[in-house]
């Protein structure tokens, strides 16, 4: 009800704006997220309003390996839907088998994250972030540096894109940096995940949606003996959050004491701020779908959830002078650890992992997909 009324209002506003500006109306085909009533909508950048056409174009680009230097790496090469858009590897692997420095983060609910990076506090939009895998050279991810003119010309020749760019961007109907990054941003903003067993239990009133073990685990997760929820808090289970209609942009970066000296390959936020207090600080990841996103931590250095809990039980693996004060260590029985893991597993949203709206749109023998590396 609320959602229908809202999209009607949005379309009225949009059609008023767009007819005045001379846009084709179909370009702004109203987009609304299939969100439950309890979940507020995300904020969207002013220069990239959502539309169904743009999301669909972004999906094609996301799975298109022709965006890379040699036609082998797509966004999907490190962000696999079946793993909640992570890749199962310790660190991401880019063009020519180049190993990155960081674990590929999940893209579920990224629309709500004010910072789209493990450590760079300035990476505040998905549109800007897209430039890093495309053109970054340390490490090489998609290896497109200096080749954008050729890549965009190749895309323009594809009959799908000839029509899809015109529909999504009537005023600027070509593959180019602006349109490609906007479409990729819009697709990523469509990746919503709020249909886990825990959601059905907590918000949907289905009291039998959680096992008894997961229910016990929930109580432990929110207990101050474990202190899990001080950083993994709120609806995304992270202290990073922004939403439509709220003045707050909340970001949370913490040092979890993984290393006494963080390696220069991934030193944390200090890499961007040069502040000694930022050594070893990384963005708190959301715990939604955490059970399918192993391995863990910013560098994938812990293979499973049991290992992560052992790290926090110890109060930090090696310890660090910047270690967050909430990581105090705890003792837990084997049964309690099993209950906590059952709770974490209840945060998996199977619909996200199989939703055809987010799946690879390209036929098997299409050039977009033919040479594409899979995680």
């Amino acid at each position, binding site marked *: 009800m609320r959602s229908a009324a809202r999209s009607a209002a949005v379309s009225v506003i949009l059609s008023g704006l767009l007819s005045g500006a001379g846009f084709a109306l179909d370009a702004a085909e109203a987009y609304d997220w299939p969100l439950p009533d*309890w*979940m*507020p909508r995300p904020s969207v950048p002013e220069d990239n309003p959502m539309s169904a056409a743009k999301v669909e174009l972004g999906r094609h680009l996301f799975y298109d390996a022709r965006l890379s230097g040699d036609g082998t790496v797509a966004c999907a090469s490190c962000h696999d839907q079946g793993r909640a858009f992570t890749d199962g590897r310790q660190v991401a692997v880019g063009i020519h088998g180049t190993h990155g420095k960081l674990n590929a983060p999940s893209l579920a609910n990224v629309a709500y994250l004010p910072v789209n990076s493990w450590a760079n*506090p300035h990476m505040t939009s998905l549109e800007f972030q897209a430039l890093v895998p495309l053109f970054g050279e340390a490490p090489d991810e998609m290896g497109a540096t200096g080749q954008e003119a050729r890549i965009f010309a190749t895309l323009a020749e594809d009959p799908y894109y000839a029509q899809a760019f015109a529909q999504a961007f009537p005023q600027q109907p070509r593959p180019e940096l602006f349109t490609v990054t906007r479409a990729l941003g819009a697709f990523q903003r469509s990746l919503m995940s709020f249909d886990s067993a825990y959601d059905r239990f*907590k918000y949907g009133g289905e009291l039998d949606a959680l096992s008894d073990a997961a*229910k016990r685990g*929930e*109580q432990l997760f*929110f*207990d*101050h*003996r474990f*202190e899990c*929820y001080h950083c993994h*808090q*709120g*609806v995304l289970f992270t*202290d990073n*959050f922004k*939403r439509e*209609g*709220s*003045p*707050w*942009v*909340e*970001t*949370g*970066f*913490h040092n979890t004491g993984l290393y006494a000296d963080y390696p220069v390959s991934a030193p944390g*936020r200090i890499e961007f701020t040069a*502040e000694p*207090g*930022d050594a070893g*600080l990384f963005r708190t990841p959301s715990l939604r779908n955490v059970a399918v996103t192993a391995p863990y931590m910013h560098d994938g250095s812990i293979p499973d959830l049991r290992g992560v809990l052992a790290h926090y039980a110890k109060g930090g693996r090696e*310890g660090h*002078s910047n*270690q*967050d*004060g*909430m*990581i*105090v260590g*705890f003792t837990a029985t084997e049964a309690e650890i099993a209950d906590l893991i059952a709770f974490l597993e209840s945060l998996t949203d199977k619909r996200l992992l199989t939703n055809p709206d987010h799946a690879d749109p390209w036929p098997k023998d299409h050039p977009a997909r033919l040479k594409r590396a899979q995680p």
Partner: protein
Amino acid sequence: MKLALQAALAALLPATAAFADQDVKINFAAEIGGHPFACDATFTDIGSTGAAVRGTDFRLYVSDVAMIAADGTRNPVTLTESAFQHDGVALLDFEDGSAACANGTAPLNTQLAGTAAEGSYTGVAFNVGVPFEMNHGDPTTAPTPLNLTSMFWNWRGGYKFVRIDMVPTDKAASGPKGWFLHLGSTMCKSGGKTDAPAAPCKNPNLMAVSFDGFDPAKQTLVIDPAPVVAEADMRSNTPQTSPGCMSFLNDPDCDTVMTKLGLPFKDIAAGEQQLIAVR
């Protein structure tokens, strides 16, 4: 929408309403150890061992604001709706998200703004905290300023009424990483940690603060945790308890602290609150 409606209603009402309202603005300042709070500052001689600390957070909720007349009667202040004020609850926010407060938010709020019935007032009263009816809802759908994850515990516990986080500059590698003052309700009975309690918490821990001699036009209410933690060691923490004092009954680190917030704690009687003073 709501504002437009109020304006329209106001235009319809006769100007001869029985009581006119007057604007009320109450200014606050944050300090640690008598020095203005800033996210890039270091404050010396804090706590029982005279620690040097940096402040990493400094926020609190205020509600039930009233002006006190010379004869002692209290007139409620209607807080103006804004990002920082909703339905009688205000967030005072002295961290700007910079330097040591990087996990905070950029906007600041150092003032309560509202209206009260016209009168001659000589004092002010308010609670530090969120009223029970608003304290245990779903923060995902709560209106601002009740939608901040860093001010939230869980539905059973409600909000952190006060969040003042201090980190010693010379903390021991093996010792606690900081001393955090988190005030909130405890012993709230409910089915689970993410269920709202049906009845008020046994220890609401709302701080009732009042000042009989306060002139909003000339004076400021100064919030300083230093007197509150004067007998607490910023460099130590009782093992297996939350770092600093987070209001929990199992935490001996709260023994000397809660009484100085004007609150009883276990069998320790409430003293005078020492967190806020008039200047």
